């Protein structure tokens, strides 16, 4: 698992925090597999030391944002033992459908809400679900291959489009570049409910949701990691955190968006050179839910501490201006 010394110290901290708080922290809903771990900085634990909060918070949405929200939720629950936070990952689109039906308090999103989509913006208007969009981090959407892949070091946007576009005829690696092996290429990617899918198809294929369909699709990024990790001739794409967490079995492909090959990294995202796959991540709390004190406290805690968790999960901190705007927007929404 993790051999990173920082992570080990953090894990120790988590242990201590667990032992000292002696709280009934039973609500963490973690699916099987290795979700990028976070939730381990006891220094940031005290959230709101005021009156004891209670209630339950229901969150769904992007599997890319999931590790951050899950980490925030775990720490928040340690400080507020009366609040139960459930975080699921139906995908950005799947989550918005529930959110706009009024079933969840907040939606994690790896792309902005689609105002004209029947299941999203339109449904939110019809059902009078008002929300505020808060930017929380940046992701380097990563194209990944098996660790034994020694040929695909860098792919251009055009090559990615050739692989993934609708009607693609790429069946072997050699169809992309004659110097690649003449072996069948096995493709793994998110399904149509995923914001990662929407973002990737728009950035690479030119139109959101325009993609070939004969690849292994899953809204669960761990299923994709498992697929690529077990298959030398695999190629897949998903959020940076899932790459960082599994570097022993998979590795990133550099992407050439026109200005040379760039590997996904925090530095490249901050320098603005990881194009076209660097993308903002959001949370969408509903205004109705923000009227509940425990949920308002949760979202405030989220924005105050998000950078800690973003660092741990492997994503890139949002620009300070983005977070400041998010905090101002939240304050305005809370009035």
């Amino acid at each position, binding site marked *: 698992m993790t051999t990173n010394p920082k992570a080990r110290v953090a894990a120790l901290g988590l242990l201590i925090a667990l032992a000292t708080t002696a709280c009934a922290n039973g609500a963490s809903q973690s699916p099987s597999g290795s979700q990028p771990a976070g939730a381990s900085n006891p220094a940031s634990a005290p959230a709101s030391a005021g009156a004891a909060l209670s209630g339950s918070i229901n969150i769904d949405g992007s599997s890319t944002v999931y590790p951050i929200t899950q980490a925030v939720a775990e720490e928040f629950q340690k400080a507020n033992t009366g609040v139960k936070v459930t975080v699921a990952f*139906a*995908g950005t*689109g*799947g*989550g918005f*459908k*529930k959110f706009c039906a009024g079933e969840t308090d907040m939606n994690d999103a790896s792309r902005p809400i689609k105002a004209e989509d*029947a*299941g999203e913006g339109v449904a939110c208007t019809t059902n009078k679900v008002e929300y505020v969009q808060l930017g929380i981090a940046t992701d380097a959407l990563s194209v990944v291959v098996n660790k034994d892949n020694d040929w695909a070091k860098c792919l251009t946007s055009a090559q990615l489009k050739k692989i993934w576009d*609708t009607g693609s005829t790429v069946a072997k690696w050699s169809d992309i570049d004659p110097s690649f092996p003449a*072996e*069948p290429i*096995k*493709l793994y990617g998110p*399904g*149509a*409910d995923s914001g990662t899918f929407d973002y990737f198809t728009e950035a690479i294929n030119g139109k959101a*949701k*325009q*993609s*070939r*369909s*004969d*690849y*292994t*699709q*899953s*809204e669960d990024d761990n299923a994709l990691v*498992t*697929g*690529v*990790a*077990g*298959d*030398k*001739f*695999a190629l897949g794409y998903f959020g940076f955190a899932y790459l960082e967490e599994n570097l022993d079995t998979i590795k990133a492909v550099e992407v050439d968006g026109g200005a040379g090959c760039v590997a996904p990294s925090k530095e490249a995202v901050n320098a603005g050179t990881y194009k076209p796959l660097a993308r903002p991540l959001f949370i969408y709390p509903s205004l109705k839910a923000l009227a509940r004190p425990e949920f308002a406290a949760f979202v405030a805690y989220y924005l105050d501490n998000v950078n800690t968790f973003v660092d741990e999960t492997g994503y890139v901190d949002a620009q300070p201006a983005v977070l400041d705007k998010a905090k101002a927007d939240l304050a305005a929404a809370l009035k």
Partner: protein
Amino acid sequence: MTAADHALTRRRPKSERVIETFLFLAAGLSVLTTVGIIFVLAIQAADFFAIVNPIDFLTGTVWSASIEPFRFGVLPLVVSTLMVALIALVVAVPLGLLAAIYLAEYASVRTRNVIKPLLETIAGIPTIVLGFFALNFVTPNLLKPLFGSAIGTYNTLAAGLVVGLLITPLIGSLSEDALRAVPRGLREGSLAMGATRFEMIRRVVFPAGLSGIMASIILALSRAIGETMIVVLAQGTSPKLTFNPLESAQTMTAFIAQISAGDTPQGSIQFKSLFAVALVLFAITLILNVLSNRIVARFRNVY
């Protein structure tokens, strides 16, 4: 019917008629449920076929239910389903029949009393556990060393093999019952004619029990076609038309599971496509059942 019988029927107490009505209702309810299911399937599927041409649906080779442009050619799902079932039968028929012959003809009563319940335990393992076993043991530890990088993490072969494991006890147990039902006189006659034990089994007992054996195989085939959890876990989710068992694909049941578990809004084309696929699945199992009845009737020997 004698006059006395007739008198008895007429003088039956009221309570008995009430009970009889209840029994009839119980029997009728299960029939009604089935009719209801067919009705709902047909109505929703009719909605679907108003949009998608049934011929395109049945002969199309591209299935893309959630990624645009939407294509609803069901053949990839059907082929994948049949591949899984075929691989399962290749495993389960020989294994099951050999087990049945051993248990019915060779095993001592004590051995049989131990082995048969054990065999049936396999059928009781939750299929999600078997699916996990296929994905995390069969593929990496058994198939990878054999096929190397030609085999994917998710593949049809592992799913088929483990489904085969699941239906082996079904064939074994039911075939054993069929073999044991063959009258003792036939066996003794055969042995008395100088047949060896193996000849007796091959020439007399096996043909005599054939109708039951065929029925057990078809029942197992239906079970394999309807199996969901193992294929969801081990076969992956890539609906493509392929006859290569080393690749990932998607069965009809796995597609239904994937779409139902997601957030498909009611009334959308994807939602309706579920019913069309379910109808195909239903039709296939129905045909198999009818076939099974025919075969049983055709091969049945009455003693």
